[in-house]
């Protein structure tokens, strides 16, 4: 367990430092954030056609002109990095890591889209509630999501002596490390 957490924290710091590099920002983070704004807007326009995306900004083109900008911490990149570090640090076959990360990425980013859309409407309704949800509540919920995804993934990882066997339904590896 101690070994797992040491590796996890080292990987976390390294991946986060990598994310902050200009190259990663230009080629990964900013395009992803813009894409996220487009996806969120596409979903919202199904029931609210006045919403448009401009880069990382989601804006209401009618009424109050309210807009939210998807900044660092709100694009789900950090949450994905946490999940990636946790899956890489835990002893598991690479196949399980790839599958876990793919499913986990969808789970984290899916909830993050819900966060973005909810904040867009909360901000138009009540700014105090928006601030609360933005700064505290959604941060906790996204981390809870990451924790649950990781626990579900750990359940599926075969124990070290059982590698090569089909995915078990029991979670044998929680005590590893």
């Amino acid at each position, binding site marked *: *367990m101690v070994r797992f*957490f040491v590796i*996890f924290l080292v990987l*976390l*710091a390294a991946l*986060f*430092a990598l994310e*902050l590099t200009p190259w990663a920002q230009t080629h990964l983070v900013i395009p992803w954030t813009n894409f996220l704004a487009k996806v969120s807007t596409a979903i919202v326009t199904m029931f609210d056609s006045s919403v448009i995306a401009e880069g990382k900004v989601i804006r209401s083109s009618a009424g109050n002109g309210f807009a939210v900008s998807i900044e*660092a*911490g709100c694009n789900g990149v*950090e*949450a994905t*990095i*946490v999940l990636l570090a946790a899956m890489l640090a835990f002893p598991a076959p690479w196949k399980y890591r790839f599958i876990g990360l793919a499913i986990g990425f969808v789970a984290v980013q899916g909830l993050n889209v819900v966060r973005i859309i909810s904040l867009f409407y909360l901000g138009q309704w009540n700014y105090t509630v928006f601030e609360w949800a933005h*700064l*505290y*509540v959604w*941060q*906790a*919920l*996204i*981390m*809870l999501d*990451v*924790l*649950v995804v990781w*626990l*579900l993934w750990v*359940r599926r990882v075969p124990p070290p002596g059982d590698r090569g066997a089909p995915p*078990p*339904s*029991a*979670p*044998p590896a*929680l*005590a590893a490390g």
Partner: protein
Amino acid sequence: MTGVAARPPRPLLRFVLITLAWLPVTFTVWYVLAPAILMPAELLIRGIARGFLPDLVRAIDSHDSVLSFVTTLRPGSAQAGGELTVDVNMLLYAFGLPLFVALTLAARQRPLWRPLLIGYVALMPFIAWGVIADFLKNIAITAPPLVASQAGFGAGARDMIAFAYQFGALILPAVVPAVAWVLTHRPFLEQLRGAWSARGAR
């Protein structure tokens, strides 16, 4: 009448639902009692400022959960009068506390006070990290050049402050409570594993 074997309850789903039910309660208590709950972090911040930043911080005032760092820096040129104050909201770095408490209450691992105490103590230094890094970022990076130059940080130090701030703001407040919870709940996780095994054996 034919009997259908009932499936055992989904332990993780139950745990998540109970956690979600606790979150409004823990967030409310956390917000209302924040000045008292965050007192250890505030004392730690005051100690760090006194011990390591005496040339930059003259005093720290607190109101509600906001710490006002009264600096030795001048708002404009070094010769101009006035003093520069930087406000930092401690809650921004402490939202992991209600999450940790909700997870702990949902796990119901006995004795309850033990993980609560360990988690509470473990989170305080990281809250202090976030607040101090926020203050340093304000005076070294986001302040106007005339102020930043008075702070006297070199390029390397500014890079370190920027990383410490980003890590302390975007990663630590959410990750530390989850790590603390996993570390203090090995018995619960084993119990979860047992329940999963029972479900899988059906």
